[in-house]
């Protein structure tokens, strides 16, 4: 397994280089530059900025300079937020995104698996219909609609005696739990619907397989059949999904963090793209790529734990 892990890690390097290169070229090819503004800069001021950020160099040289800095762990200077380096901005935003995404995934996982199993076991019964309704709702109602609805109910309609909303309508403040409840709820609703649907389908398939029939024939109680024998193999598709969900909790943060005005990576990447803050966007791309490689590796390793037939 160690050799496999090392091999996967080595393979990840050209993947990352490819992603960074493509993003680098795409960003530079996008019309509009970091210093375009409604009030145009004087030619002299623009020339000073171009010199400061090496824009006077050929693109290939700028790219090599960027890669060189990246190898030293330096994500570069932000063109927009000049008081901060990209490393500092990412370091401040990452805990917020992880705090929201990290809390929502386990909750969504537990709820999604439980609901999926319940729906599969009680197929075509009310619980099944509820899970399917939830699954479809979570998929069709976009977060930028569901988010404001949650805010409207819990921050505007429901108020304390002092006239404050039960929960904050947005912002992060000092990161208190009250600021986390609604964004986590939104992410849970988005993810739980997908997990429950996949879990239900997988469990239905496993429950109709021969070894489950054998277990039932042995006279094992249904609870044991489901939780001890069927659950593990039925989890495989959910585990596959987990890698994608983990990454999407970072990428879907673009919407969640906009709706709740959270100072996470999502806000940062949106601002970076709008402002043509190339280094800021690339910094987050690098981070997301590393996360994608890591999550996918963990998912592959988890297969071996769940399915004894898989060996690396």
């Amino acid at each position, binding site marked *: 397994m160690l050799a496999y892990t090392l091999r996967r890690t080595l393979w990840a390097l050209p993947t990352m280089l490819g992603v960074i290169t493509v993003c680098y070229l795409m960003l530079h090819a*996008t*019309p*509009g*530059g970091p*210093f*375009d*503004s*409604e*009030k*145009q*800069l*004087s*030619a*002299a*001021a623009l*020339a*000073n*900025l171009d*010199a*400061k*950020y090496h824009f006077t160099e050929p693109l290939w040289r700028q790219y090599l300079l960027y890669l060189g800095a990246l190898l030293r762990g330096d994500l570069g200077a932000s063109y*927009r*937020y*000049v*008081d*901060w380096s990209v490393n500092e*901005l990412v370091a*401040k*935003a990452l805990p*917020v995104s992880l705090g929201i995404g990290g809390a929502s995934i386990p909750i969504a996982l537990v709820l999604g698996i439980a609901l999926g199993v319940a729906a599969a076991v009680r197929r075509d019964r009310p619980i099944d219909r509820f899970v399917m309704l939830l699954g479809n709702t979570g998929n069709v109602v976009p977060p930028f609609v569901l988010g*404001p609805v949650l*805010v*409207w109910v819990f*921050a*505007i309609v429901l*108020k304390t005696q*002092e*006239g*404050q*909303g039960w929960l*904050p*309508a*947005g*912002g*992060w*403040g000092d990161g208190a739990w009250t600021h986390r409840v609604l964004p986590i709820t939104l992410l849970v609703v988005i993810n739980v619907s997908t997990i429950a649907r996949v879990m239900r389908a997988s469990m239905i398939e496993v429950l109709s397989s021969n070894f489950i029939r054998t277990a039932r024939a042995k006279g094992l109680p249904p609870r044991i059949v489901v939780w001890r024998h069927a659950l593990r193999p039925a989890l495989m598709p959910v585990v596959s999904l987990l890698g994608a969900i983990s990454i999407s909790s970072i990428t879907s943060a673009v919407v969640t963090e*906009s*709706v*709740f*005005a959270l*100072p996470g990576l999502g*806000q*940062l990447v949106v*601002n970076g793209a*709008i*402002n*043509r803050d190339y280094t800021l966007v690339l910094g987050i791309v690098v981070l997301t790529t590393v996360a994608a490689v890591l999550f996918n590796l963990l998912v592959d390793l988890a297969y071996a734990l769940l399915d004894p037939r898989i060996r690396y």
Partner: protein
Amino acid sequence: MKATHWFATALFALVLAASHAAHAALIAPDVKLAPVQTLTRQLPAEIESLDPAHIESWAANTVGLDLFEGLTRIDASGAVVPGVAQSWTRISPDTWRFTLRPDASWSDGVRVTADDFVYAWRRVLDPQTGSKYTVLAEFVKNAKAVVAGKAKPAALGVRALDPLTLEVRTETPAAFFPELAAMSSMAPVPRHIVERARDGWTKRRPLVGNGAYVLDDWQPNNRLVLSKNERYWNAHAVALAKVTYVPIEDDGTALRMYEAGQFDYTYRIPSGLYPRVSKQFGPELRAGMQIATYYYSLDNRDPAFKDKRVRQALSMALDRDLLTKRLLQAGEAPLYGLIANGTKSASPFVPDWVSWPMERRIAYARALLRDAGYSDAKPLAFTLTYNTNDLHKKVALFAASEWRTKLGVQAKLENVEFKVLLQARHEGKVQASRDGWFVDYNDAMSYFDVLRCGSIQNDQRYCNPKVDALVEQANLLLEPDRRAALLTQAHALAMQDYPMIPLFQYSADRLVKSYVGGYSATNYVDQRASQDLYVIAH
């Protein structure tokens, strides 16, 4: 002799104005203050910097005004009042002398001296600094040469005659210099800190400044927490003990946060919600104007707009009253010229046809188009480009509909992303486009950047040497009324060429809790320092 007389009068008036005692929050004696003086304000975006050399946006300037104080400052009513300078005189058309107050100090106790201003201004212009916002400091003599690297920063026309006297020479006479001296980018920086920490000096906590507040905490995209600077020279008149700025870009989110009690003061009402918000919040919606113009930029070199008659016809056909009162409904004022109401040193332009019935306007506009060679068989066609935004979309649909129904003009609408529009407009790749101008300082000169021949802000590529000559002539005058008359004339002359289509003056509508005092609707430059605000017992 006459010039000397006017000069003496102007000098006297300036000294008199400047010698008024400065006040922070002006609180009426019968107002009972709340025991807890804290305020949470919305910023429309995360700020780009707290270093005066890098401050360029309205948001950063607003926070900057709390942390750093320039020679002058803008008070609650929008008037220029003494800041670090307790008085100033214009000793010649292009030379100003500022006398600094002896009790001004940095928040670490070090005295603020004239040298701090010299150092700060040289630093803004130094090519090594890479400042984006050099336009204000560029009024100082030799500034443009310094930015271009053709002169050393030491050649800049500013010098400290002694620790409390600063002498500034401007490149051309600039009657409005005290106005722009109030902006954050003209504020001093603590040389003793900056030279030690270089670019990282704004990361120190508390950040050393000379404003009414000091920065305690700054979490990007989250909040900036400021507390009262007890060493500020006018600290006894500052009421608010703590101010928190929260950057929220989405107006809808900000409105919900206000409703949830998280804000005391918002920045903007979401487009289209003004009537609802007005009904829901009543007097908490503080209406006001700001000196900012919404207009359509026309490329005057483009074959479609080369002919002045075409530009005039397009302008005449637009019913600004309908646009502002029925469609936008957020207190905007119709504009027919570039210069907005409330601008010092020039009056707005109102053409004769404004008072005509719409039928007559349309007939006249149609005749103009006909004379220019357009007809129903050969209609005028062009592309109007705007950036993605609800307001811009509404206005563009309105304008295209007006032109089509009233003149038979075919305006194709093109919606692009903000930076794409900026680049295309600056490079002359769009025919007609959404444009706007927010003044940097309250003087008509701020607007003429858009009209002067060859100016980088002149996206219309418009040029009338007579306009430039009048502006130059006006700036040589020391008597304010005569200067204003000439600038008004220059503006009218330019507007009679119809280089662009002015549409309306932006309103500045804020939701501000009823217990917040010190908010004035006459602050047209929209620079509201926290030291002028206070919380009333509620």
